[in-house]
């Protein structure tokens, strides 16, 4: 293999100088490689660490915040949820099936490494326009990859979101979230114990795949990226399944001090992270590492990102029992080194010392960059674009076009490829509600999850957009009946060295942080994915939020479909008079412009509390948040999934009709309730000072909107359903 220069490894001149200072000498090739991967954005967050400090991370429910493999949140009864979201964007761009599959594998390992049984998967995906042939194959490959891996593990994929847009054409986003359930006593952390403890590796043998994957993830995609296919790993979900079961048995028998998965930067990173937290050093002999290829150098062994491998530090005198359990699952566990007391990361090949680096230099002392963001020119230009003077667009046609927009259309083509029911806990399935709801067996409780992002809004106004994304996730949980507990995020941005991109990131993070703080939903874990660019063009800034919520009683859950004719349809919250950044503007006018609807955090909070109160009394028959496509699309979805039509009258003055129908501003939701529940709902609305409009009733088999007795939209369920259901399958045929 041709040797790379430090620049080819992604290090700058200054960083190279810094390495020399740390080592007090020039690094050899192995050491250089180890620094390069550990100091990549992917591993050390050098461009984002400073900004991440904005996030609130503490809260009454938080057991473990950022810094471990995943966040941990208390849900009562000595149980906790462990969750995190992570990106696998660049591998998926090059090799969609394996890239997405190993993305799932990586995030699942993060969860069971913490001692938790993985119980749910979600994802968040972005692609270029679905009409594009290459996009179709990427999209189809990514969905199959997620399905192929998750289905085999027997972890249900219960939720997600998918959007298509020009900015993602050369650089798709593939973010995967995993949630685990754990008893408090079983929570495991990545620590090394004391000097002298053996370190074991278990799982797949180490090959040459994925070398410099972490570096690859931290640079822009170019024409040459295709040549980096060897940097994409190949997944083996069956091996991962064996690892899950075996590792959870180790935890159950309390046999390990520390457990760490091998992810980005392979052995180098997992070993460094494990020992650095406790201030120890480590000695590892590459000859002891089982390999699947011959003649691998120490460099290749230390940097390999072969999948499905775990690092184990067994408790004293438990090595034998650890090996027995692995043997039961047909796995080999090998001692590859030991914890030392000298703070050095020493790589041996037999007796030969191949490299020696102070552990802290690789981890805590990695570089931090505080950059100066610059507001891009487009920001004010777009913001001042007026949406009042748009030419007339027929409302029925608009609704049909929106329902058929791949961003809004039914995602059944996707989620039917995912086993979303295995484990028999899924009580609100994908497509039926604003969040996935799972029961927790042997308790009355339920938990709910959602992933949300909106690149277009964040692009137009990173601060408001950042706030909006957090609020939407919280609202989705509240609509389904769950109190939001905590969130994880995946921050997908372009090249942070570009001042405009840095500004987007800075403003979006500030917006998200402000909303999280106000709504008291701490950030417990996350991942940063930068350099999402192709051909020099950045993707829309797309921070994605994964949020977890709790239902103290699973009976309080609520899905989005109408339940019976005669139910009243009620709109909660003030009307939104802003079309900026809406799907309506994009689909009907081809515009991605305008002022983003400002987020009113007090209104958001009030709505969440109000909805949770109503759910607690079981007063609502259905509930659905108003987002992409506005009220019209939200009502149409509730109708299509249930088979009930509606008659809605929008006799409200002061707001133009197209805004009543299609504006997306948050802080709103609609619900249905029986006539008999109406008075109680209104009493609660008065208590909460919640603006409430009864807009119509569930009835018949048509979708009818009226204004002053004049029909504005009149569609049969069948017509609307056809647009919504057949759009994505038609594109993918």
């Amino acid at each position, binding site marked *: 293999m041709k040797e790379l220069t430090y620049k080819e490894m992604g290090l700058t001149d200054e960083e190279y100088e810094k390495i020399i200072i740390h080592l007090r000498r020039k690094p050899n090739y192995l050491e250089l490689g180890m620094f390069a991967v550990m100091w990549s954005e992917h591993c050390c967050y050098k461009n984002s660490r400073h900004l991440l400090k904005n996030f609130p991370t503490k809260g009454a429910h938080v057991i473990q915040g950022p810094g471990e493999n995943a966040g941990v949140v208390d849900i009562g009864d000595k149980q906790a949820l462990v969750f995190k979201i992570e990106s696998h964007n660049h591998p998926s761009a090059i090799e969609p099936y394996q890239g997405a599959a190993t993305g799932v594998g990586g995030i699942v390992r993060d969860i069971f490494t913490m001692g938790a049984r993985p119980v749910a998967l979600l994802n968040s995906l972005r692609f270029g326009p679905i009409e594009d042939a290459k996009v179709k194959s990427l999209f189809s490959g990514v969905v*199959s990859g997620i*399905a*192929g891996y998750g*289905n*085999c*593990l*027997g972890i249900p994929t219960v939720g997600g979101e998918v959007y298509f847009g020009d900015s993602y054409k050369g650089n798709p986003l593939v973010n995967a979230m995993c949630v685990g359930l754990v008893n408090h006593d079983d929570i495991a952390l990545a620590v090394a114990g004391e000097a002298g403890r053996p370190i074991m590796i278990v799982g797949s043998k180490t090959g040459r795949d994925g070398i410099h994957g972490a570096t690859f993830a931290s640079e822009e995609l170019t024409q040459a990226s295709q040549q980096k296919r060897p940097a994409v790993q190949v997944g*083996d*979900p*069956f*091996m991962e*399944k*064996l690892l899950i*079961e075996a590792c959870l048995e180790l935890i159950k028998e309390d046999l390990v001090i520390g457990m760490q998965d091998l992810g980005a930067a392979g052995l180098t990173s997992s070993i460094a992270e494990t020992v650095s937290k406790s201030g120890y050093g480590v000695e590892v002999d590459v000859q002891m590492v089982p390999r699947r290829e011959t003649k691998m150098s120490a460099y290749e062994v230390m940097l390999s990102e072969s999948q499905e491998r775990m690092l184990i530090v067994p408790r004293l005198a438990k090595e034998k029992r650890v090996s027995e359990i692995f043997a039961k*699952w*047909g796995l080999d566990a090998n001692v590859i080194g030991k914890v030392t007391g000298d703070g050095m990361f020493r790589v041996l090949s037999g007796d030969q010392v191949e490299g020696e680096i102070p552990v802290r230099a690789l981890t805590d002392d990695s570089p931090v960059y505080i950059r100066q963001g610059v507001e891009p020119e487009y920001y004010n230009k777009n913001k001042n674009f007026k949406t009042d003077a748009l030419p007339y667009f027929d409302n029925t046609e608009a609704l049909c076009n929106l329902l058929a927009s791949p961003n809004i259309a039914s995602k*059944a083509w996707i*989620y*039917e*490829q*995912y*086993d*979303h*029911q*295995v*484990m*028999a806990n*899924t*009580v609100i*399935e994908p497509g039926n509600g604003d969040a996935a709801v799972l*029961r927790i*067996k*042997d308790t009355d409780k339920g938990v709910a999850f959602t992933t949300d992002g909106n690149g277009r809004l964040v692009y137009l106004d990173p601060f408001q957009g950042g706030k909006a994304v957090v609020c939407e996730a919280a609202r989705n949980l509240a609509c389904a009946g769950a109190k939001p507990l905590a969130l994880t995020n995946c921050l997908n941005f372009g090249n942070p060295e570009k001042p405009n991109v840095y500004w987007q990131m800075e403003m979006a993070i500030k917006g998200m942080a402000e909303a999280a703080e106000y709504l008291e939903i701490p950030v417990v874990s996350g991942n940063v994915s930068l350099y999402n660019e192709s051909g020099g063009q950045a993707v829309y800034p797309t921070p994605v939020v994964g949020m977890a919520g709790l239902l103290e009683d*699973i009976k309080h859950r609520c899905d989005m479909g109408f339940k019976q004719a005669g139910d009243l349809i009620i709109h909660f919250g003030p009307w939104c008079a802003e079309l900026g950044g809406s799907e309506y503007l994009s689909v009907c006018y081809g515009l991605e412009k305008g002022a983003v609807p400002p987020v009113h955090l007090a209104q958001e909070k009030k709505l969440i509390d109000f909805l949770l109160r109503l759910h607690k009394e079981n007063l609502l028959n259905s509930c659905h948040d108003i987002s992409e496509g506005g009220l019209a699309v939200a009502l149409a979805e509730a109708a299509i999934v249930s088979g009930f039509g509606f008659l809605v009258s929008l006799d409200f003055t002061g707001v133009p009709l197209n805004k009543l129908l299609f504006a997306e501003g948050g802080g709103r939701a609609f619900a249905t309730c029986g006539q008999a529940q109406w008075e109680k709902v209104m009493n609660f609305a008065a208590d909460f000072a919640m603006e409430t409009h009864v807009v119509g009733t569930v009835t018949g088999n048509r979708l009818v909107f009226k204004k002053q007795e004049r029909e504005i939209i009149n569609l049969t369920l069948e017509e609307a359903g056809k647009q919504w259901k057949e759009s994505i399958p038609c594109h993918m045929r």
Partner: protein
Amino acid sequence: MKFGVVVFPGSNCDADCFYTAEKVLREEVEYIWHQNNHLPAVDALIIPGGFSYGDYLRCGAVARFSNIMPEIVKFAENGRLVLGICNGFQILTEAKLLPGALLRNDSLKFICADVYLKVENNNSPFTNAYQPGEIIKMPVAHGEGNYFCDPETLAGLKNEGRILFTYCGPEGESAAEYNPNGSLANIAGIVNKQGNVLGMMPHPERCAETILGGTDGLTLFNSICGWLRKADSK
């Protein structure tokens, strides 16, 4: 009454079947590890869904050679009840306890969705609690559920009433659009000649409780329990 749930390293519906037996049916149940070469005293065996040994080869092709398989064959040959669900069905065909094979879905995609089934024969240990011709709803979740066999075998299955479930529409109509995988004659579940071994692609354990959206799967388990009780009292 006691159920046994066979566990291969890649089984992933084992816990769901166990839960159904223990918490929903309130019967005894025990896991049976694939490396065992004897069976505990159980009244019925469940071979659950999943990916037995990864199934990178044909689904169930490796499971057929596992330690526990000869014991399962003996158990079946003694007329005891064996229920293979999804991967379990695939394994039973590989082990030749059931005829035919499960091919890749005609869509070439994994499918997880609720489907309608018609109970074609309710005169069986597995279906006696259903009404004749009853239309039920049950989820499927598989990539290889496309049942295939030769014409003589199919004729035999039909004539001997060994097709217990077929895919259909909500009103019982049989049409290609209601067949999720391209299965021959819309076959969703069949029994062996003796009628004591059932293989089915749909997952009854996923619809055995109201909270999961339906109890049509519970009726199948109730059929088994009822039949075993009756056999016991004879």
